Structure formats: structure tokens, C-alpha cells
């Protein structure tokens, strides 16, 4: 079996399709042209409003074996995916490929539709129960494919995934198909993940619970790409975009990690006028943002921009003038949505703008530094965000690959132990992001510097920061818990992890045993 550039065995074909193994973060030279949806026209006076979601599905021509797509901007509060798949089941449509950007615990009832053959293939992130379910193997006709935000945009734009019917949940839409996610009682944030779906799908259905007179602005999704508009009681519950992690941690360990992470970028000279950063929504990242804000205020410097996922903490930095512009692909709380609505410096962006490999510019490439998490890291600095050490596929990629590849200094923050499971491994269970784009790993025990960055090692030492090797930190953690067993993987592939350029960086195999 061929071995890719991070040493993983990758089959030559998966589900009958040839596989390009990962060759390096920027090795792929794209070929060919972008694809688009079919050419269509309309006449003045023609309407698009469907009498019901069911009728919209009927009229869309959706049939067995087709691909349906969704965005995940309602996160764990999404109500559209289930409504559509339930309706398809009722209509007797089966063998569908579900191409949502991400699935969450609220989507657990889909298991029934997988068992009944309504859904036979899934592409996209699976956070929680659906991932755990498909990890058991034998559940789907083809292994699920996981892509980063940028990777998904690329896959649609180049025709790697053809969408038959795109369903786009909108918290505000007009009867002509213009739609956004920032207005309405159930506003959820930018719904820009779906822009590429609207451009490339054969058929586009905007679904809203808040129909307004023409024109709905801003038209994140534009009328010219929309076939039908359907109205339902509720497309999603915005309370679900706030997850349990969205508050600054009080854990001394996580706070120490956050402080070390900020100290590290400060030592590298990156807290300066005109700086830029990305920080996620995990407890440690939020704590790091808070510490960063204090440091920036003390130093009297301002960031030119920050990239969201946005929370109230980043919004506060925008309001205080510490950050001049937020480039935002995803809102993580109500304050972020409110800011998108009211502050012109809070700019919604598409994955195409910030993350697409097949493009001549990514906002992530303009980043000075980024704080990212992970479930494991290995001695080659490879990071796993998809599986746990027991082999369970439980998380999506999100923007991890896109940000890590782009930022000048990519900082991974994680404790050395979660419960009694060590996070630093000889080899990660699954490679999501290759070590070549990771610069620092910060744990409560110190900071490991990728040997590719001797300049950073020098900066950190000069600042008196605790520079340790991953080997040292791994040994310190294992002293307390020993070395556990590792899963033995069988042949069956239960997940395909694409690098953002469409090559395969790793596959997740079914766990057969332990050794």
C-alpha cells in the first residue's frame, strides 16, 4: 500500500475511486477549471415560493442516489437536516449522500435513516454520536470523507463533489431567494458556507422560518442561484450555536497553557502594531484571547484583523478598538451575530475567502499567529483533531488545516493528560494536520518548538520561557499513567481524512482489538 508524506498507508482506491496521497502541505498543483451549476433563466413575474418543504423536495427532482447539502451555522441547534431527511424518508427517497458541512449531537436521530437505507453515504464533519456510530464500521456504503472548511469549498468548486440539491437554512429570506443568517428571530451568523453550494448545485432550495418582503439584505445567498424558497416553523435554534465550551476556563492548568501560549507569541515579537491572529472558541483559546487583549492594551498595540469563529470575547476586542476588523466565517454566540448586524468592521467571509487551497489568496495566509487545539500530537508535531486515542471518530476538522497551513506561527494548545490518557503520542492515531505546518505545542509543562523553527526556539529561550521537547513532556506524563494499550485497526475504512488540497492525509480504520 502506498505511503504518503506523513508516513500513513493509503489505499490506491477508496470506494472505487482513485486516491491521491498527501505529498506535502503545498505540493499539489491544481489542474483544470472551476465548475458551476447548470445554466437557467427565469421571466418577470415567475415565483419561487413552494407551498411546503415536502413539495419543494418533490419539485427539486431529488431522487434515489443523489447528494443533498447543508451548512452547519446553527451547529447543535440545527433543525433543517432532520426535517429534510425525515421528509425524504416519508417520500420514499433512499440511498442519499448527506453532504452537510458538519453534524452535531442534535443529529443523532439520523442513525435511524442510516439503518433504513435513506442515507447511505456521508461527507462532512461528524461531531459526536454519528461519528461514534459510523466508527463501528459497516454502516455506510462508502467511507465518509472529512474535509476542512477550505477543503469542502474546493471540493465543490472543482466538481469533486457534485451537489444535486442544496438546502440552505436562512434566518431571513425573501420569496425571490435572497437569504442571510444575521436577521430574524433565529439569526445564527454568516451562512457563507453555503455560498459555493448555491453556485454549483443542480438545484437550490432556501428554507426559512422568517419570510420577509423583497429584498432581504444582505443577500448572502443571491436570488440568481436559487430555484425555490420554502417556509418551515423553525430552521434552527440559535441557542444551539453556543456550546458548553464557550466560556473562559477557570482551570489553572488551562489558564497556564493559555498564558504560556501568549507569552510565546509575545517572545516571537508578534504582539505589535498591525498584528493579526486567529483564536478559536475552546476554553483555553478564549482564555488566551483574554490574556492577549490585556497584553495588547498594555503594549498599546492594535491588531489589523482577527479571523473568527467569533465569540463575545473577540467582539469586545473589536469594540475596544484592539482589533480593527474581524473576518468572520462563523458565529459562536448571540453577541457575535449582533456585531455582524451592526458593525461594518465585522465582516462576514466565505471559506473561499479565507481557506480555499485552489485560490490566489487566503485570509489565513495573512495571519501572524493562531491558537489551535487537538486531541493528540505526536513526536513529529503531527496533530489529530478527528479521533480519540481509542480510535473513535468524534470530531470534524473545522478550519484547523486551513489556519495551521496559513499562519506564520501556529500554536497548538493542549494539556499533556486528559483524564489518564496522554495527549503526546509516538504517533497520532489519525493525522489531521501535518507537523510541517505546526510551530509550537504548548502544554502545562512547557513549550515544544518544531525543529523547523530554530528562530522561535531562540526567541523563547531568550525570553526565559520553559522550552521542552515533546519527548520530555511525553515521558513526564507517562510516568503518572504508564503506557496504555493502543487500538489494533482492521482493514475497513470508516473515515477518510482529506488534506485541504484534496489529497488523503490519513484514513480512519475500524478498531478490531487492543494491544
Amino acid at each position: 500500500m502506498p505511503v504518503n508524506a506523513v508516513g500513513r498507508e493509503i489505499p490506491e482506491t477508496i470506494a472505487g475511486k482513485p486516491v491521491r496521497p498527501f505529498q506535502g502541505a503545498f505540493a499539489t498543483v491544481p489542474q483544470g477549471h472551476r465548475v458551476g451549476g447548470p445554466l437557467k433563466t427565469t421571466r418577470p413575474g415567475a415565483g419561487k415560493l413552494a407551498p411546503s418543504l415536502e413539495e419543494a423536495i418533490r419539485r427539486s427532482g431529488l431522487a434515489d442516489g443523489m447528494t443533498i447539502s447543508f451548512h452547519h451555522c446553527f451547529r447543535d441547534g440545527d433543525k433543517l437536516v432532520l426535517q429534510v431527511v425525515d421528509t425524504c424518508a416519508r417520500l420514499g427517497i433512499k440511498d442519499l449522500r448527506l453532504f452537510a458541512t458538519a453534524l452535531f449531537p442534535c443529529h443523532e436521530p439520523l442513525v435511524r435513516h442510516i439503518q433504513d437505507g435513506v442515507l447511505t453515504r456521508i461527507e462532512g464533519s461528524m461531531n459526536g454520536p454519528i461519528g461514534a456510530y459510523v466508527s463501528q464500521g459497516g454502516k455506510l456504503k462508502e467511507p465518509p470523507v472529512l474535509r476542512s472548511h477550505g477543503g469542502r469549498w474546493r471540493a465543490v468548486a472543482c466538481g469533486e463533489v457534485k451537489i444535486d440539491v442544496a438546502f440552505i437554512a436562512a434566518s431571513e429570506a425573501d420569496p425571490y431567494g435572497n437569504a442571510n443568517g444575521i436577521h430574524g428571530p433565529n439569526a445564527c451568523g454568516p451562512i457563507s458556507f453555503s455560498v459555493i453550494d448555491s453556485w454549483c448545485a443542480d438545484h437550490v432550495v432556501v428554507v426559512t422560518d422568517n419570510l420577509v418582503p423583497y429584498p432581504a439584505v444582505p443577500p448572502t445567498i443571491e436570488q440568481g442561484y436559487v430555484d425555490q424558497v420554502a417556509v418551515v416553523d423553525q430552521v434552527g435554534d440559535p441557542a444551539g450555536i453556543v456550546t458548553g465550551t464557550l466560556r473562559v476556563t477557570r482551570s489553572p492548568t488551562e489558564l497556564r497553557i493559555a498564558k504560556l501560549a501568549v507569552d510565546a507569541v509575545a517572545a516571537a515579537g508578534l504582539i505589535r502594531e498591525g498584528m493579526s491572529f486567529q483564536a478559536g472558541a475552546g476554553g483555553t483559546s478564549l482564555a488566551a484571547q483574554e490574556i492577549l487583549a490585556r497584553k495588547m492594551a498594555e503594549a498599546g498595540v492594535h491588531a489589523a484583523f482577527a479571523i473568527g469563529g467569533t465569540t463575545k470575547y473577540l467582539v469586545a476586542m473589536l469594540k475596544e478598538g484592539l482589533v480593527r476588523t474581524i473576518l468572520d466565517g462563523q458565529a459562536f454566540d448571540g453577541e457575535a451575530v449582533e456585531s455582524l448586524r451592526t458593525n461594518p468592521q465585522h465582516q462576514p467571509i466565505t471559506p473561499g475567502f479565507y481557506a480555499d487551497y485552489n485560490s490566489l489568496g487566503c485570509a489565513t495566509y495573512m495571519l501572524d499567529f493562531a491558537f489551535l487545539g487537538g486531541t493528540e500530537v505526536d513526536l513529529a508535531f503531527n496533530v489529530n483533531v478527528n479521533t480519540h486515542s481509542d480510535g473513535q471518530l468524534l470530531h470534524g476538522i473545522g478550519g484547523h488545516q486551513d489556519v495551521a497551513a496559513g499562519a506564520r506561527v501556529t500554536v497548538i494548545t493542549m494539556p499533556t493528560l486528559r483524564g489518564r490518557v496522554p495527549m503526546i503520542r509516538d504517533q497520532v492515531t489519525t493525522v489531521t494536520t501535518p507537523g510541517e505546518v505546526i510551530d509550537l505545542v504548548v502544554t502545562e509543562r512547557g513549550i515544544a518548538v518544531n525543529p523547523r523553527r530554530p528562530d522561535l526556539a531562540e526567541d523563547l529561550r531568550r525570553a526565559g520561557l520553559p522550552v521542552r521537547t515533546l519527548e520530555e513532556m511525553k515521558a513526564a506524563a507517562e510516568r503518572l499513567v504508564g503506557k496504555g494499550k493502543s487500538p489494533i485497526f482492521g482493514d475497513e475504512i470508516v473515515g477518510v481524512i482529506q488534506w485541504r488540497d484534496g489529497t488523503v492525509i490519513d484514513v480512519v480504520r475500524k478498531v478490531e482489538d487492543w494491544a
Partner: protein
Amino acid sequence: MRLEREAIAGTEERSDALVRVRPGEGLTIDVRSKSGPMYRERIEAVVRETLTRYGVSGAAVEVIEAGAYDHVIAARVETALARATGGGEAFHQPLPLVATRQATARDRLRRSRLYVPGGNARLLAFAESFGPDCLLFDLEDAVPPAEKDAARFLVRRVLATMDFGRTELWVRINPLDRGGREDLKVVVGGRPHGVCLPKAESPVQVTELAGLLYELEGRYGLPWRLWIMPIVESPRGVLAAFEIAQASERVVCLAFGAEDYTREVGCSRSGEALLWARSHLVAAAKAAGVQASDTVFPDVEDEAGLRVETLSARNLGFDGKGVIHPLQIDSVHEVFAPSADEVAWARGVVEAAEAAEKQGLGAVTYQGRLVDRPVLLRAKRTLAMAQALGMEVGNAG
């Protein structure tokens, strides 16, 4: 060792394990682990090893593990066994020291002393990385009476196993007449550097503790003499502070505890109300040639307040301060670190003294002021501290 009854120990909380032992024929060990099959055998081995240590050959053991480290599981098994057998001498035998540890100097840096509840596995899980100058495992106020035995065993295992780098390790025992003797017998086997004596009110308590330590050090062949830190937290204690500090060569630091003191005196916790007690304690400590450490600052959220109180303590002559949360450590360390100006002054004084000595001059002046012996000693101490903290101190000193 025979089990007389069923017993349980520990909890199902994060980083802990619940262990149940029952008398039985042969050994049966049943493990339910939060991480599934990953550590099941390892945990079984830890249980078996602990049973073997105590010569238990007949027991049914059940473990519900929720992210507990090996030494936590061992401590919970130990506790359950002690409860099932009534305890005894076998449980006092010191553990093999797995961690690297060295003796500490009498006058080392003790800017921060962090209290960690001795019975709480979750709060102890990351204790290696907190980095205070002194870490105090608390068996007294932080542990409810029914869990004192469990906390002793846990603290002993933590001490013997975890690597705390340059942190000096202390155990706050219970008063000697209320469980403190039993505390000592168990925890000295983890090789702490010293013992904190709460509610110190008379030199007799200190000499009694010193005697017990002497005996235990001899019996168990401990690698160093344990230090004593009396905690003065009553008006009586403040009045006897000098005698307490002088009662034993082992005393290296007097700590002040404001909470009990204010209650007994009936005063507020303001700086003004505590000024006399604090100043008296510092004077007593310094007269006896030991360090003084101020009371804890109770509000974790109030960083500015912590800095103000710590600075005031430093100005009064305290060498350190108690903290109740790892988050408070950095602020305290920063306040106790010499400022760049102070380091420059100290370097100037030392250089002037060296130059004067070379030229054979008796009287030394710096910046127009006489440098006598106490001034020179203070300057040297400042430089030593700056050097210990990795500050830039130039070539002098």
C-alpha cells in the same frame, strides 16, 4: 493481612477512582475504566501490586476509574484496605521514592506557599506544573474528618510519585492532639521537605513535633531532616511568636494566618487592624533568624487587591505570602522579585564595596551614602535573589 469487613474509598469524580474491597477467597479484581480497554490491565496491575505490598491474598476488589493516575488508584486501594482491616503499622512504611528530590536550603526562596487540598484527586492531578516556591498539601482545614485517612494516603502517594522540580514540598498536618501524629506517621514516607504546624501557640508544640520528626526520620531512614513551618493564627500565637520561632533548629519560616486571628481578636481583616500582628510576627521571625510568610489572600478574582496586599507584606519585611489558587502565584512572585532599580542599586553597592576592599579602604560609600555591613548584606541578598530568578545582574555579586 486479612480483611475484616467491606470498605470503600475514593470517588467517581474526574481524576479519581472509587475502590471497593470485600473479604474473599483469592484475588478478584474488577476494573471499569473511563478510557475503556486502554488502561484496564494496567489498572489491574496497580491494584495487584498494592494488594501484594500489604500481603493481602484474599479480596474482591472493584474499581470504577474516572481518569485517575496510577498513584491515585494505589492510594484509594490503600485507604480501602486500611478501612477494611483497621489500619496499623504496615500502613506507615515509607513508599519507594520514584520522584527525583533533593534537600532544600534553610534560607531558600519562599515567595509563595500554595495550599492544595490533600484529599482532592482532581486538584492534585496537575500539581506538578503549578510552580510555587512552596507547595502545601493540606490535611487540616481542607479535609473533612471522615476523609483524613484517605487524604494522608493520597498525599503520601502524590509526594512519592510526582516530580515537583524545584518546588519545596510541605504538608500541613492536623494539630498533634487531633490526628496530627497519625498524619506524620503516614506522610513522612512520601519525603516532603517540611511540616506545617497549624495553630502554633507555644514553643512546646514545636519541640514536640521536632521530637516526633526525629524519631520518624531515624525509624524510616529519611534522607533529610524535615523543616518546620509553624502557622501563627491566634493572638496567643502572635505573642509567643519569637519563642515559637526559636523552639527548634528545624523552624525555617513563621507563617501568619489571618482568618482565625481576626475571628479570635474580633477585628476586621483590614491592613490597619492586622498591622501590629504582622509587624510583630516579622520582627519575631527575623530576631530568631527565620523567614516570615504572610497570610493568604482569599479572593482569587481580585488580582489588583492581591498585588496591593502582597506589596504591603513585602514592605513589612515578609519573605513570602500564602496563596489559595495557582493563578495567584505569578502576581506574588512578581511583587517579591527585586525591581530593576533595586538590582542596579545592589550591584552598585557590591561593586563599590569590592573596589574599596581592593584599595584597602575601610569606609565604603555609594551614591554619597555610607555602606555599612547590613546594607552590604542586603545588597548581596537582593543580587542573589535576582540571580536565582534568572534576572540580568551584570558581573558583580
